[in-house]
């Protein structure tokens, strides 16, 4: 019955001179997301977007609600002719079968040519509704149902449902960031939250075959695929770095308790090089403070010191359960908990250091050809489009 979807975007309409480019990007993202659904024309007017549907609006709304950042809410809209009887009939159609005891009518009238004024429309519709639905009464302060009426040039628009959406900024509106994607629960959530603020995310996975199974790589590709619909262009570029030689080297150092610290330092070095090469402005990790030995303040300090590129840690203040809740919402959880070893779990020493210092790390790294190992790992890094599993580079 609703042929039109009204899309509201909040924050981006505040973005001053960038507003137009934000809006254009949001329009593009909506079109990418809706590929294959029965949507018609998309129009942008006065800080809102209208999407024509052929009446089956639910699938379109569901996709927008699930995947498109930058949208605050959506309403399915009934379009009627600019004539009171037709508007009343529309009100009846919308209210029929809606739960609730109280209502109010809220009218906007940008089309000043319409013969009735705003209070007159409110009165005429309110009276009609009271007569048609004896169980309803008016409550202008805290109504169960709010019937919105907009008198516009192209007709009268009526709606009551407001479906809350993801918010955030349009995917890709901020810039590129590289997500260290391990295969656990946390890193996909960190990627999702970065995408929410407009980061165009690319993944970087450290692969230690034959110390880990090929299934662990397939798992990370699947996580990338699951993140694609939230990301810029609806796709997800995944860099797979051959990390085996570094893992082997780390097993030889005289300070086994530092191997995780050194491993993370190697990961950041490789991430930084890749970010510079790919013109990314940040690395993104799933660190949550104090969760494991490499995520204590001391560890993060020592690990972080190998790079001066910003590192985003969107999960830093989250408890495990909060992270799990999001990963279930974005449907990465089931894949993340598949029990294949990733490179963080195969090589865990018996007693990893929880308070490593930079001096200790430098001393342990003195035994290794750090630059050579990083260069070799980078030279064996290739790239996959996780949404299609196609090799890119």
């Amino acid at each position, binding site marked *: 019955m609703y042929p039109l979807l009204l899309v509201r975007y909040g924050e981006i309409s505040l973005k001053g001179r960038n507003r137009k480019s934000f809006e254009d990007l949001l329009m593009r993202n909506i079109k990418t997301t809706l590929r294959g659904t029965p949507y018609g024309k998309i129009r942008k007017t006065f800080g809102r977007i209208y999407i024509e549907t052929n009446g089956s609006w639910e699938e379109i709304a569901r996709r927008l609600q699930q995947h498109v950042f930058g949208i605050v809410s959506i309403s399915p809209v009934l379009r009627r002719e600019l004539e009171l009887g037709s508007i009343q009939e529309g009100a009846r159609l919308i209210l029929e079968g809606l739960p609730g005891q109280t209502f109010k009518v809220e009218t906007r009238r940008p089309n000043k040519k319409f013969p009735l004024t705003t209070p007159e429309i409110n009165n005429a519709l309110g009276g009609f509704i009271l007569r048609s639905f004896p169980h309803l009464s008016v409550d202008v302060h805290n109504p169960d149902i709010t019937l919105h009426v907009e008198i516009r040039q192209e007709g009268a628009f009526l709606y009551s449902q407001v479906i809350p959406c993801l918010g955030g900024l349009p995917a890709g509106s901020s810039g590129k960031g590289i997500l260290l994607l391990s295969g656990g629960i946390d890193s996909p959530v960190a990627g999702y939250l970065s995408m929410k603020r407009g980061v165009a995310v690319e993944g970087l996975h450290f692969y230690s075959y*034959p110390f*880990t199974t090929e299934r662990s790589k397939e798992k990370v590709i699947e996580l990338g695929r699951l993140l694609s619909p939230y990301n810029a262009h609806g796709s997800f570029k995944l860099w797979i770095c051959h990390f085996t030689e570094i893992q082997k080297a780390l*097993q030889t150092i005289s300070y086994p308790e530092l191997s995780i610290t050194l491993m993370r330092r190697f990961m950041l070095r490789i991430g930084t090089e890749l970010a510079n090469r790919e013109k990314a402005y940040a690395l993104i990790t799933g660190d949550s403070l104090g969760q494991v030995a490499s995520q204590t303040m001391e560890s993060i300090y020592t690990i972080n010191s190998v790079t001066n590129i910003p590192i985003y840690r969107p999960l830093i203040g989250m408890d495990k359960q909060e992270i799990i809740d999001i990963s279930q919402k974005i449907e990465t959880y089931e894949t993340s908990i598949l*029990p*294949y070893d990733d490179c963080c779990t*195969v090589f865990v020493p018996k007693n990893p250091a929880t308070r490593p210092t930079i001096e200790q790390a430098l001393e342990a790294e003195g035994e290794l050809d750090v630059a050579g190992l990083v260069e070799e790992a980078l030279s064996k890094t290739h790239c996959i489009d996780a949404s299609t599993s196609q090799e890119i580079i």
Partner: protein
Amino acid sequence: MHHEIYLDNSATTPVSDQVALAMEPYWAIQYGNPSSPHMRGVAAEKTLRHCRQQISDLLRVHPYELYFTGSGTEANNIAIQGITSAPHFRKHPGHIITTAIEHPSVLNVMKHLETLGWAVTYLDVDKEGQIDLAQFKESLLPETKLVSVMMVNNELGSILPIEAVGEIIQEANTNRSSKIIFHVDAVQALGQIPINIPNSKADLMTFSGHKIFGPKGIGLLYARRGTNLHPILFGGNQEGGIRPGTENMPGIVGLTKAIQIAMEDLETNTKHLLELRAQLISGVNKIEHSYINSPEDGAPHILNIGFEDIRGEVLVHFLEQRRIFVSMGAACSSNRRGTSHVLKAIGMPSEKILGSIRISLAPNITKDQIRYVVSSLGDTVEQIRRIYM
């Protein structure tokens, strides 16, 4: 250079050319449903009857004692739950004896039955993977209704004393009004050691197709005449109502062919496999800090071994790079973290369990290939140790 050396035949085998050829017409030409009234159906029914007859001849049982199932797991479930789901047991669950080293498709049924009030005794095994017959005899209670013991263990290859267990049960049954039912999971025994169903005194026996160069998706349950199985799946009247669902004709034809070949070649194959196994053992023994987990007199096709300071999982992936395919423990559990319940049951410390792999042979493996496998084991083990040391 070899193409690949597949040594995970206890997980599954490829379908042999002869089996694939036998199955071929049953996909698109002889596609009939044995229940259909027309010629297509009659032809299929004839094939079905013929296959059942042929297997019953090979196994020396009556054709009506055989039920085709969807897998070995399904056959185990139908066998065990087919006994325990008798209406009488709903209010009066009884007692079952099984072993600690059964396949998950038996052990997890037992766990389920425990939630329904059944008491289950899990027989211990010694370091050879053997049960103690005296302990078994002592475990028999007046309310014991079912005994389930596997013929060959899938991780170790230990051969359990089925005939002795059967005799003890038969003796106990002489002065019982309700007989103890004896179920044997013989999935890993078929085609590997001689199976004599009448001598075993088994009432129920489980087999599977894809461990003997037959197709996946087909299993077989033997149920001695007079064994009262209660259906756990409901549907049409196929397989005596015990396993409803349209018969998997290509699978049944493939299974029949695979059993036929396996039984015909049993003697030659056993001799060959025992030679390969001995060759492997002597090769592994020459590698430093290695150990053999399988018993000396185990089934000819399974050898479980281990190496100190090594993770079996890592060794599997290193060998894979040389296109040698082995597994850690059983394929069904090795995807999961945690250690093998079988190796735990024979009293191995978890360090040693983590360092273990299972090699399962097949008749098409040559001595040259085993020579290469042994030298690869030596090389890779040393290579991994160097990394970790």
